[in-house]
């Protein structure tokens, strides 16, 4: 708790100077210091001082974000192509991806990465299972999820043991608009 308080303090000081941009103004300097201390105190009162609050500054995670951004661009292209083509052939499906990151932070990173990649949304998360809604057939590929899970686990330094599993096969209810 003391360690994360220190990290939070550092992050908030950097945040303050990023926002403020005044380095030589005495009043702003003093009030800035007091406000940072007040916010850390508030966070302590709220009981939110732990590793989940301050996951910033992990150099491993920078590489992950670069990789994730590449994935997002790729997925965006696929979705744009599907949406803008006159036929608009899509095959929405829902399935469960089972994975077990050790911590809530790892689970959140993984689920948010899924949502960030267009074409897949994490609809529900229960313990180790994420219910995913996918727009296109090529996005149900479990290998992709596995890679994302492993990488996101590494990015936030989780003890992780990943078991990809298609828990429920998507039901095909043939429905067509206009018919």
């Amino acid at each position, binding site marked *: 708790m003391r360690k994360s308080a220190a990290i939070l303090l550092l992050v908030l000081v950097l945040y303050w100077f990023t926002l403020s941009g005044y380095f030589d103004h005495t009043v702003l300097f003093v*009030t800035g210091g007091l*406000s940072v201390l*007040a916010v850390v105190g508030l966070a302590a009162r709220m009981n939110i001082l732990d590793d989940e609050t301050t996951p910033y500054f992990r150099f491993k995670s920078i590489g992950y974000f670069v990789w994730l951004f590449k994935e997002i661009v790729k997925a965006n292209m696929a979705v744009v192509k599907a949406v803008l083509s006159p036929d608009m052939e899509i095959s929405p499906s829902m399935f469960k991806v089972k994975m077990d990151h050790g911590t*809530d932070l790892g689970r959140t990173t993984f689920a948010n990465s899924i949502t960030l990649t267009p074409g897949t949304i994490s609809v529900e*998360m229960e313990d180790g299972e994420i219910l995913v809604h996918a727009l296109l057939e090529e996005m149900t590929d479990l290998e992709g999820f596995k890679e994302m899970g492993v990488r996101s686990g590494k990015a936030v330094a989780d003890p992780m043991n990943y078991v990809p599993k298609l828990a429920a096969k998507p039901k095909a209810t043939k429905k067509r608009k206009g018919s």
Partner: protein
Amino acid sequence: MNPHVILRVVAKMLIPLIALFAFYVQFHGDFGPGGGFQAGVIFASSIILYALIFGMAAAKKAMPPSWVRIGMSLGVLLYGGTGVATWLLGGNFLDYTRFAPESTHAAGQHWGIFSVELGVLCTVACAMLAIFYAFGSRVQDLSDEDW
């Protein structure tokens, strides 16, 4: 287990940033857009976010209702008190130049505006929280099924 894991983790990251942003808006009101009214609402919204995720009881532990009640009136007192102080220093009500009559850079004005805006921050933040607490505590914590 709390079903809203993602919301909880992300809210935990955001709450300190929102709270500090409120103070930034407060103290940079002299240089850019901002001031006590905006800062008060932003600060209140950080606590409201906490209450929405962790429940009303936890929020009341972090920011007790008694603080809210005191802060609400303390802000008005600070504003009015600034006026009375200038009065006692021999000026008119809220005539801030009395704080530093000889200053060439209007330091008195700066101090007056500073303390007045602080009063506004106190009142606005606490009044918003008071209204939120009053409405929110009236209903017991809703379970997801009630929606």
